[in-house]
């Protein structure tokens, strides 16, 4: 009996002393944290992808509260609705950030870009890039080992086994930029989604001279500058034998697209063009009928073949 009593009393005393110490410590060493940080973190998607430029969602919440303004801050995963919720909590106005999407700037599929060597090293673009110029004659284009697909947290980018190129699922892509970071050749660019999800871009990053680039790939930019001349908005620049369309200046007029002799300029999600044909030609009438049927918003990249006189549309 006595033994039990001693145990209970001594443990009780130890507990009491510890409680006092903990109480004092919690008051004395207390760190004030804005309760809004936790609130903001609550509405964020908790994907921790780092696409906002901060280390994880709590880092982003912290930055939002401390900055005092939401200018230039965007959660790419949640997008505008989440930013509106954050703004409501903080009593601020949500910045108007344009929705973005990852764009693969290489169209060198197996068919367009013949393989001249075989790579049998570790399956990693980073390793292949450090080893040599790649399986094709183009030492700038996609290596096809799929580092980008492995880096994606949202299952939004996949390698297409037929073309050997990655394809972005625009519905799932949050433009977090993980694939862009993983690509050793800087092929993937995060571009504005554009009006009605329609955008123009040069689907090539080859900086070789025209002759070499053309030899390596049928759809490479050869730096001829035709698109630069035709652009009414001065949105296209030519540097190191490579054209680049500035998304801020581009008005999606599509004038550059048919001008490109290599078909390197891609107009994504635009309706198919109506072919300019004479009614007398029965062949082209056929194609007209075909295209009018399929004249809908299509994800397929239209390729216009200028080499055969009249423009013919291939889906």
């Amino acid at each position: 009996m006595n033994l039990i009593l001693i145990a209970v009393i001594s443990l009780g005393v130890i507990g009491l002393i510890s409680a006092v110490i903990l109480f004092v410590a919690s008051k004395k060493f207390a760190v004030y944290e804005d309760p809004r940080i936790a609130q903001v973190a609550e509405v964020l998607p908790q994907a921790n992808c780092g696409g906002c430029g901060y280390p994880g969602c709590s880092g982003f919440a912290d930055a939002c509260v401390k900055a005092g303004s939401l200018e230039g801050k965007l959660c790419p995963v949640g997008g505008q609705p989440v930013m509106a919720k954050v703004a409501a909590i903080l009593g601020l106005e949500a910045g108007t950030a344009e929705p973005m999407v990852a764009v693969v700037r290489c169209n060198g599929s197996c068919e367009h870009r013949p393989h001249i060597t075989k790579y049998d090293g570790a399956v990693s673009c980073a390793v292949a890039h450090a080893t040599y110029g790649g399986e094709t004659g183009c030492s700038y284009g996609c290596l096809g080992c799929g580092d980008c697909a492995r880096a994606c947290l949202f299952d939004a980018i996949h390698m297409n086994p037929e073309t050997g190129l990655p394809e972005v699922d625009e519905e799932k892509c949050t433009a977090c930029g993980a694939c862009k970071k993983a690509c050793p050749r800087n092929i993937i660019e995060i571009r504005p989604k554009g009006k009605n999800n329609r955008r123009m871009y040069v689907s090539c990053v080859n900086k070789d001279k025209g002759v070499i680039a053309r030899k390596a790939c049928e759809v490479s930019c050869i730096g001829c500058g035709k698109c630069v001349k035709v652009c009414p908005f001065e949105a296209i620049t030519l540097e190191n034998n490579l054209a680049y369309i500035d998304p801020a200046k581009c008005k999606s007029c599509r004038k550059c697209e048919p001008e490109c002799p290599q078909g390197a300029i891609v107009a994504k999600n635009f309706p198919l063009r109506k072919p300019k044909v004479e009614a007398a030609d029965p062949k082209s009438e056929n194609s007209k009928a075909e295209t009018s049927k399929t004249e809908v918003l299509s994800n397929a990249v239209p390729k216009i073949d200028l080499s055969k006189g009249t423009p013919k549309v291939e889906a």
Partner: protein
Amino acid sequence: MKTFRIGGVHPSENKLSAGEAIETLALPKQAVFPLSQHIGAPATAIVKKGDVVKVGTKIAEAGGFVSAPIFSSVSGKVNKIDTVIDASGYRKPAIFIDVDGDEWEETIDRSTELVKDCSYTPEEIVAKIKDAGVVGMGGACFPTHVKLCPPPGCKAECVIINAVECEPYLTADHRLMLEKPEQILVGVSLLMKAAKVTKGYIGIENNKPDAISLMQEKAIAYPDIEIVPLKVKYPQGGEKQLIDAVIGRQVPAPPAIPISVGAVVQNVGTAYAVYEAVQKNKPLFERIVTVTGKSVKKPSNFLTRMGTPMSQLIEAAGGMPEDTGKVIGGGPMMGKALANTEVPICKGSSGVLLMNDKEASRVEAQPCIRCAKCVGACPMGLEPFLLATLSSLKEWEKVEKEYIMSCIECGSCQFTCPSHRPMLDYIRLGKGTVGGIIRARNAKK
């Protein structure tokens, strides 16, 4: 018999061309000189389209202290300055020269007479080596004059000549020793004078007994030079392994370099190039290249002018065998598969190896079974499996702490791995990335 103390493997030697005397290869129709043939800053071209050059004319100036000038190996007209795919697999700037005749610069002494005496001071010898564009001929292509100028606080104690040729198949150094032993010994004594040391060693693996006995016989006249026979073990030709094997000193982890333990290591081919540069006034524009492979009709050793396309060497050795799986620049362990056969011979091209399909194909990698064979084989005492895994996970800070910069990329780990894991692929990636991070950090300071 001496050898280095940790790790190492013994791949089958396959020295098929060891018995073939050195042949002089015909001149190419067009010679191509990439501007970066060495470690360090690329050279800058000093000729332009249409310029007429002779054999031995300087066509590119060194781009810095750690760099080397480039000399024309042919006489003719500069066709263009453009890009060429070199052994790295990327397009690099290069000078193209159309060959016309074979006219040499008058300053070059073309006689075969041996010149033993040298009245130059050590500084003059270093200057001559620098001006002749001599770089390490073993494959790494480190400018020779840089090695002969020790950084402050370091003092050279001996010169060690690397005549190990531990790479399977290659026989260029072996043939050179058999055919030019006295020139090599004069070259070594010049290197010793330039480095201001009185002791020289020549390390030769004992799979070349003829070279060892010949060099020993000729070295009687040079009491300061000792021939050191070494046990056959790969990678004995690594600088640090050779120092350990010959004088028993271990070089600490980077940034320490061989000179930190008092050793200056030079390849035997470099010693010969130094002899020619100093005594014969002949800049570095030709070298011995082994063309070999199990299916090659006529494995040979060619005295080749720089800039010759590898396809010409392959033709001269009996043409490309039908079952060729890979064409490798260098030896099978450290060499690199080439993207095409038009790659020109450079200062560091020691061999062209034509591997057949069977040898060339990689076996599919299996999961690591934790046998630690790679750890046992690593001559630097590293943990290759860990370095590879960390590199594949892009853990650059951790992999730096595991001494990835000490890796000499010899490939013993991958050679010995029973699961055929591509460890070296990832380690090279990690080493390259960490090296970049370290350089950026130093530049900030």
